[in-house]
């Protein structure tokens, strides 16, 4: 069940678009902001609210890599693996991260603190290698800086 705040916030978006279906991405962002991810149940609720089939909503959800269809940790680390970052030492960064967190790419730490995901380009090649945690971009990284960065997130 969507909360009444979620429902209201989604319904407010309707005014901005000619059709309800067009609100699909916004609706999922609204729900994900509150719950961290889009469960099958949320998918159904959103579909019902927008007059779409659940298949149609999942088609959109699964297309976008920032809509999460599995639970994620309290903080999502997205480490850039595209070419500039790779040249500038992405692999070392990744090794450091996975060993510090004790998880592989795509996994969540057992304490639910971090989820580690790859991403293709954060638009900061001049500061490569970069990663993003939640909405914050961390630039000019090297393995030594990782611990200090992670500490900020509890």
């Amino acid at each position: 069940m969507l909360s009444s705040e979620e429902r209201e916030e989604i319904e407010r978006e309707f005014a901005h678009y000619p059709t309800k279906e067009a609100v699909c991405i916004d609706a999922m962002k609204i729900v994900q902001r509150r719950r961290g991810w889009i469960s099958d149940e949320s998918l159904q609720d959103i579909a019902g609210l927008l007059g779409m089939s659940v298949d149609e909503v999942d088609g959109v959800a699964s297309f976008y890599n920032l809509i999460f269809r599995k639970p994620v940790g309290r903080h999502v680390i997205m480490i850039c693996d595209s070419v500039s970052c790779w040249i500038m030492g992405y692999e070392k960064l990744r090794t450091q991260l996975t060993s510090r967190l004790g998880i592989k790419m795509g996994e969540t730490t057992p304490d639910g603190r971090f989820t580690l995901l790859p991403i293709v380009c954060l638009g900061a090649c001049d500061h490569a290698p970069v990663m993003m945690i939640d909405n914050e971009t961390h630039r000019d990284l090297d393995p030594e800086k990782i611990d200090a960065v992670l500490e900020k997130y509890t």
Partner: protein
Amino acid sequence: MTKIFVDGRPFDVPENQSMLQACLTLGFDLPYFCWHPALGSVGACRQCAVKQYRDEKDSRGRIVMSCMTPVAEGVRISIRDAESVSFRAAVIEGLMQSHPHDCPVCDEGGECHLQDMTVMTGHAYRRYRFSKRTFRNQNLGPLVNHEMNRCIQCYRCVRYYREYAGGHDLKEFVLRNLVYFGRQNDGVLENEFAGNLVEICPTGVFTDKTLKQHYTRKWDLQLAPSVCVHCGIGCNTSPGERYGTLRRIVNRYNGEVNGYFLCDRGRFGYEFVNSPERLRQPRLQKGGQGETADGPVALVHARKLLDGGKVIGIGSPRASLEANFALRTLVGQERFFAGVEDEEHRLTARMLEILRSGLARSPSLGEIEKADAVLVLGEDVTQTAPRMALSLRQSVRQQPFELVDKLQIPRWLDHAAREAVQDAKGPFFVAAPHPTKLDDVAAATYRASPDDLARLGFAVAHAIDSSAPDVPQLTDGVRALAGRIAEALKNAKRPLVVSGPSLKCEALIQAAANVAWALCRAGKPAALSFTAPECNTLGLGLMAARPLGEAQQALKSGEADTIVILENDLYRRAPREQVDALLASARHLIVLDYLETSTTHKAEVVFPSAPFAECEGTFISNEGRAQRAFQVYVPEGGIRAAWQWLRDLLIASGANGAAAWQGVDDVLKTLAGSLPAFSAVPQAAPSAAFRMAGEKVAREPHRYSGRTAMHANINVSEPKPPDDPESPLSFSMEGVSEQPPPALIPFFWSPGWNSIQSVNKFQQEIAGPLRGGDPGVRVIEPAKPTEPDGPAGPDGNARADFLGAPPAVFEPQPDRVLLVPIYHVFGSDETSQRAPAIRELTPKPYVALDSEAARRFGLNDGDLAEVAVNGAVERLPVKVRDGMAAGVAGLPVGLPGIENCRLPAWARITRP
């Protein structure tokens, strides 16, 4: 016509098409995946690349996608150009990276468009040595099998399913090389036309799950041109047989009728032919016990029963013209009764009269698809004439196409055209007692009782032509809606009215005719389409049979004492007590049928007749098109065509004229000679004497394997293939190597084109008529007016005077509901419901109530309700179905358990 140059050679081709379509029409082998003649071009797969040149001096050219390039004067392309050839091979190689090497175990193998295109481009050696992406498959229900690893991401499935068929539960998921086509979760595909995915998919992602139960390669099937028997539309099919059982049905293209698509009832309903409940030997009732007998013994016995000469015959709307006519000949015109409910019989006669004497023509499905304003009056088309619903769904694109034309976007440029019109739809109105599956494309819907629906129809007719009867006591809302519908129909170029007998309401049929005629009188070429409940409803209707209700009288009065029933379960036609009384008052009962029914159980003599795939027969569709279904294979046991049993009874009874009936040609000749309505019927297909270069048409592909060995367990000597003196087809792989005439095409195949897409090679132009014209002959045409505004009358002149009068306003009752019939594509048809896959999808009996009515009766969804109707009380679970008309409830008809219930009828619904 426009001149184009392909590899330097000039060709004249029609305008308004893509280069790909033009090249295929010209007979070039140009590979493609994402394009489909019914879906248009999206330019996604890059497979149909060709080189285009600026002018004749340009030798460099540039690569273009032929499906996205319009035909235009002087356009020069090259298919053979080396760069385009290697481009196309590279595209295939890319697609094949993730395609498994599983052709030997793939159901599509041997009729796979991907195989054909791969061979065509010459990609014969795989260089990719790494692991392939794999997926989990879904269970999509009993009809369609899912194997995602084979997918080449052409997107045809979702384009067909969502954009063409209007489904919502099939979608593409994820992205990149992980694109997945399926449902959000495992589950039965909801669309009634999902089976077409089997043919739309260019490879083996979607395959026929019923075929999987008894798999046979296409080249090992024996096939014949046939006609679907599961509703009145008459879609053309190719059923395939091996080892004496029917293995599957595929679409047989007919540009005027079914085009490229079938409904799932028609595609998957065939398995009733393989049912263990088939009758395979004649059976005699002796001392309460059934005993099988040989044909000659049964014939002698039956002849004795007929000796008294006081015999009546009951025909059948699911039996062929030949069988019905043979019975009519056996018992005499005066003693031939229609084997349908009397009300249905009356309505059929009324519809025929309207179509034959009126102004409006009954359209083919091809014409329905092109209608630009539609009123559906009292039919749930998706359930009663499924394939028509798919055509109606396309009709809403017609008016928005005008915008597409204005923007100079070719109509075939599919996504550009859809993008331009967004959600705009042409005027399409559905008036029905409950929500229907076409409501989603309707500009407006109207839910009311049958009488009120008819009143809307009358009001529309009156709004178009004030000389049509006016409707008293009309509410402002309905009058406004009628005005809106009238306006839309009047402003259309090709308006269409659809109605039918499903609600058993004559006023509805009259109202529909009035609307169409009012339009005709205003100079519009309006079309009028009636659905027909069964495959030969109109054929039987044209035979001037007496109503079934009079049969009881005939027996009571001593006019007759023996009944011959042709392929008909009377217990589905009339209430049990009435049928019991009818059968009990007969001294002797002879039944011909192919399946065991409640009626065959009562028979003194049962003759096992042949269903559609086991004999030849001619059927008249709702359009009024006579079409021939040819025999696919020779059945085992004592099975024969019903008309053959009846002919032998005729001969045994001394009617020597019948001895001349050697094949259906002879029966049809007599029929055409004795009843003028059928005079054109013999032209539905070439006669048995037809030969090409002295040869017959082979039912088996020339690669048919194992013929010498397949019966070796019985006898090591290869048996002689059965003769077929009755048709121009042979039970063999030997036959004419050219393309046969359209009515005789058993299957589509052409060198290099093994998949169903080989139909390209059989068409005059792509998506146009078959070479030689689409099969079938129309036998029902409106009478021509003698003068433009000519006088009316049943004497061969078109009548233009309006019919009937609007019924009184429907008054909902507080303590009762009007129970109307609800039809189900899976379940309401007698024969297909006996196919296991269809049975799985057939709903259990229920009573449908609006939530308001449910509350009033203190019932919830799933509760058991007592339904008192027609003097009987049934206990049925409640299905709350919102949007039912006020005062109306629904009962599904024809399902096992609710075979006969005369509806509409008033009912009391209570909590037990």
